[in-house]
């Protein structure tokens, strides 16, 4: 039985595209929860979704001018996050409305530009991702981005902790909170761009938030949340790919559904134990 199980695990590895897919998804599985942790503790989860949608105009323009699409996507997404901050700070408009307006506008601009500029962008692939088209170069690019972001999180951990926990206090001791915020936004944007090819724009938020949120339910410290989140992220990615291979499911949604199932399991388990504790206390 074990042999059959192991051969089931090994069999897909014989094809190069699955090996590439697994390589990238392990890296994304680690990176997304680490970055997503900051989104969650800053109550900015939906901002990740906004930034993901905001990449589209940049992709289209970069494709038109023959520039690297990632650069276009990065600039466009950062511009989207600045736009939200600007609208919020200059008016009485609240953040949820500013985000809804921004992501829908940027998305509309993107779709319009794709038509006007006659881009050969595959909108389906952009929206839903296609992990099975990952090349060796994509793996190298993802590895480079993951090393830079995880390295920065390691080096600036205590400053980012201070800023995300108590921004006013961090500013009061003289930490450069504008740069920390900018760095965080840049890290989030790069993570989104890297993860897009795996799960697509519509589902990238699930990978950023899902595993980290599951870890949030059971951990006491920020770095524990990152480590456990990364473990859950890797498990979700791998299980998703195998499910997609054997059940012929689309890979992005399969990964997201595994991640969400793990959240629901943990959620039910933690609320049940709280419930039982409560019952015990009442006696």
């Amino acid at each position: 039985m074990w042999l059959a199980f192991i051969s089931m695990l090994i069999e897909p590895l014989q094809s190069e595209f699955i090996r590439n897919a697994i390589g990238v998804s392990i890296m994304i599985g680690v990176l997304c929860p680490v970055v997503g942790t900051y989104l969650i503790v800053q109550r900015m989860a939906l901002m990740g979704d906004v930034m993901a949608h905001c990449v589209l105009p940049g992709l289209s323009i970069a494709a038109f001018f023959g520039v690297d699409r990632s650069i276009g996507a990065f600039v466009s997404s950062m511009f989207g996050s600045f736009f939200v901050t600007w609208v919020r700070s200059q008016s009485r408009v609240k953040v949820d409305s500013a985000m809804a307006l921004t992501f829908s506008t940027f998305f509309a601009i993107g779709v319009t530009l794709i038509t006007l500029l006659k881009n050969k962008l595959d909108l389906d692939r952009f929206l839903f991702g296609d992990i099975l088209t990952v090349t060796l170069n994509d793996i190298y690019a993802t590895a480079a981005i993951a090393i830079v972001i995880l390295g920065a999180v390691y080096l600036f951990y205590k400053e980012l902790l201070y800023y995300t926990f108590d921004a006013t206090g961090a500013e009061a001791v003289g930490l450069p909170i504008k740069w920390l915020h900018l760095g965080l936004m840049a890290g989030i944007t790069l993570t989104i761009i890297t993860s897009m090819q795996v799960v697509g724009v519509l589902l990238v938020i699930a990978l950023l938030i899902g595993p980290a949120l599951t870890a949030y339910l059971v951990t006491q410290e920020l770095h524990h949340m990152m480590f456990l989140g990364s473990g859950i992220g890797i498990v979700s990615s791998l299980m998703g790919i195998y499910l997609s291979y054997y059940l012929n499911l689309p890979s992005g949604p399969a990964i997201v559904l595994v991640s969400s199932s793990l959240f629901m399991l943990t959620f039910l388990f933690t609320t049940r134990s709280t419930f039982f504790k409560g019952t015990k206390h009442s006696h």
Partner: protein
Amino acid sequence: MLEVQEVSVNYGSGQGLDPVSFKIFPGEMVGVMGPNGAGKSTMIKALLGLVPVSGGQVRYCTCPLHQQLEKVAYVPQRSQIDWDYPATVQTVVSLAVTRQLGWFRRSSVATNTAIQRAMKRVNIWDLRDRRIGNLSGGQQQRVFLARALAQDAEILLFDEPFTGVDATTEDILFRVFAELRNEGKILIISSHEWGSHLAEGLTSLDRLLLLNRELIASGTPREVMTRENLQLAYGRVWTHAFHGDGKDDDLFC
């Protein structure tokens, strides 16, 4: 000496703070009092440059204060913080040494000792591994007090430290404030109520600033807590105040 000269804040639409000036010497404990929305938090934030000021300057030992923020410990209002943040008591107190350690360094023997001593001083050492969300309001306030102590600052600013805290924490706050004053620190403590149970704290203040969008009065608590001043600040008649006859009435506001 901390010297505040004509510092004002303008948020537009009539909100803000009219020019405020005062001086505080080392070893002085100054209370800031006024109704909710009087600009107490705004003034404290303005001193540190955390809100854009429309005029004036704040100097400490002749240099602008915002250039020497490492000498300042600021304790924000508890309500400003998300207490569901995944962090333990020890982690939050450890934030105190972030600036001191500088970039890239995690900890040192000296900082660990300072953190441990600060936690013991406010009786939260036993709670060090507890998640901050599982603490009572008073314990949370003590975590922030320990963070301020571990910073070893020369100027300490507390924004509404008495709000929603238990009697034990109140006692610890007053004890630590008195110790800090004896150590020659400058303390600024805001509270919307220096009420009946805080009367002891009120009398221990060296000076009181009464605020309502402008500085209404400044002086010893006895000089400031007059019926006229309180009426100006709170807009209604107060039956409890110092009467200047040497007899202390209930000092609630």
